[in-house]
């Protein structure tokens, strides 16, 4: 894995007109994979994840000058990626003029349309189970389960208390387990 500069140095490069583009490229390279998988788990399809991720980074480019360095760049990027993903899902919902549950079943259908989908494999069952969760609970589950994000950081990303996040994660785990075992 390539070595990355620390965020302070990357932000310093971004703020210098001569190194702005180079600094931004480094920021993308440093976080692209983590953010991609976070978005992909939310929107399921690669094309959608790619659109969301690119739009998200364009927004970051426009807003990075105003970024306050008292918060972590990593947390801030996750927040924007999460909001972009949820906004995308919301737009899909509006476009289709369907209810939330229909969108979720739509996401499940997208999963099932994957050429590698195998209903008998637990890892695919898990993905289908995750799509059954309410949006916010899905974000919490993904951030904790896959990204192993500490609750304190997650609290800043989602602007929710740590206690509420712990409870939300606990419920998500129970629902998923029940879905996999009984579904």
């Amino acid at each position, binding site marked *: 894995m390539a070595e990355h500069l620390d965020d302070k140095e990357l932000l310093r490069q971004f703020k210098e007109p001569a190194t702005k583009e180079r600094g931004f490229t480094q920021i993308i390279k440093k976080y692209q994979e983590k953010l991609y998988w976070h978005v992909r788990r939310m929107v399921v399809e*690669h094309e959608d994840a790619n659109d969301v991720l*690119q739009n998200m980074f364009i927004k970051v480019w426009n807003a990075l000058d105003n970024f306050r360095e008292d918060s972590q760049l990593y947390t801030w990027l996750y927040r924007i990626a999460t909001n972009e993903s949820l906004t995308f899902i919301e737009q899909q919902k509006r476009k289709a003029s369907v209810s939330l549950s229909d969108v979720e079943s739509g996401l499940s259908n997208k999963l099932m349309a994957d050429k590698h989908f195998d209903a008998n494999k637990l890892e695919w069952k898990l993905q289908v189970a995750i799509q059954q969760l309410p949006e916010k609970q899905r974000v919490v589950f993904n951030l904790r389960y896959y990204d192993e994000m500490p609750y304190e950081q997650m609290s800043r990303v989602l602007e929710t208390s740590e206690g509420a996040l712990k409870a939300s994660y606990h419920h998500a785990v129970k629902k998923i387990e029940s879905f996999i075992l009984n579904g």
Partner: protein
Amino acid sequence: MDTRSDILRELQELQSTLTGRQVVNVFTVPDGYFDSFSGSVMHGITGDSIIKTVIQPAGSNVPEGYFDSLADSILSKIKQQTAAEADEPLSPLLEGLRHNNVFKVPPGYFEALGGNIAARLTTGDELPALLQDLKHKQVFEVPQGYFDSLSTQIISKLKPAPAKLVNMRSSLRIIKYAVAAVFTGVMALSIYKYTQPQQAQLSAVHEAGMILSKDEVKYNSEFEKVSDETIVKFLETEGQDVDAALAAMSVDEKELPTEDELMLDDKTLDDFLNNINNKDLNN
């Protein structure tokens, strides 16, 4: 004592009944008070604290450890008093309502409460074994080399596309022709209006028309000298539709219909204008 005799004399002058009576002090002090007074004053000044002096009369003793247990004994008395007050009976009405709880909780709430609190306190790392095993199994795929080219793709989107360059001079030339055409049209109508009833004046008007034509050539040559910016400013100050003028910029001068085309077909001009409108809509 001179003083006493003076006081008696004064009383006699006042014819007071007190005259000649024995002065008797009706107040008493404890035995030996004055004997120990100076000692107790000095003790207060030089000895222990003033509080002790007040509480502890001179010459008397307090039980050993009295002051050590004083605070506890006072607190104990306060508690007894508070308990006594709390035991006072409520009004019968309130007493009857004391155990009527109007609030309800879901069935089994308290049985599950401990578990729910524990769930909130847990770090969440105690995953079921099933989910532990699945954690690192990736089911999604990404196109090969996607992450290698992602930053380049994003950076290329950040660079703005070059702005469309529009030749102001050619479009303004159209406006100039349009202005000249309108001017000529107005003059032609004026000539028609004034010459129709008065054929005799025709030659004179023709002469005037000739003069105007010459002036028009002069006008055009003068108009060429005016800068584009000045024309735009003029249109703006006159409240003219500058946007419409700018829209005309996209018209290629070569596409303009020829004089013959205009003469041969009445619809040529309409078709040309419709064509421009359609182009605008498509852009």
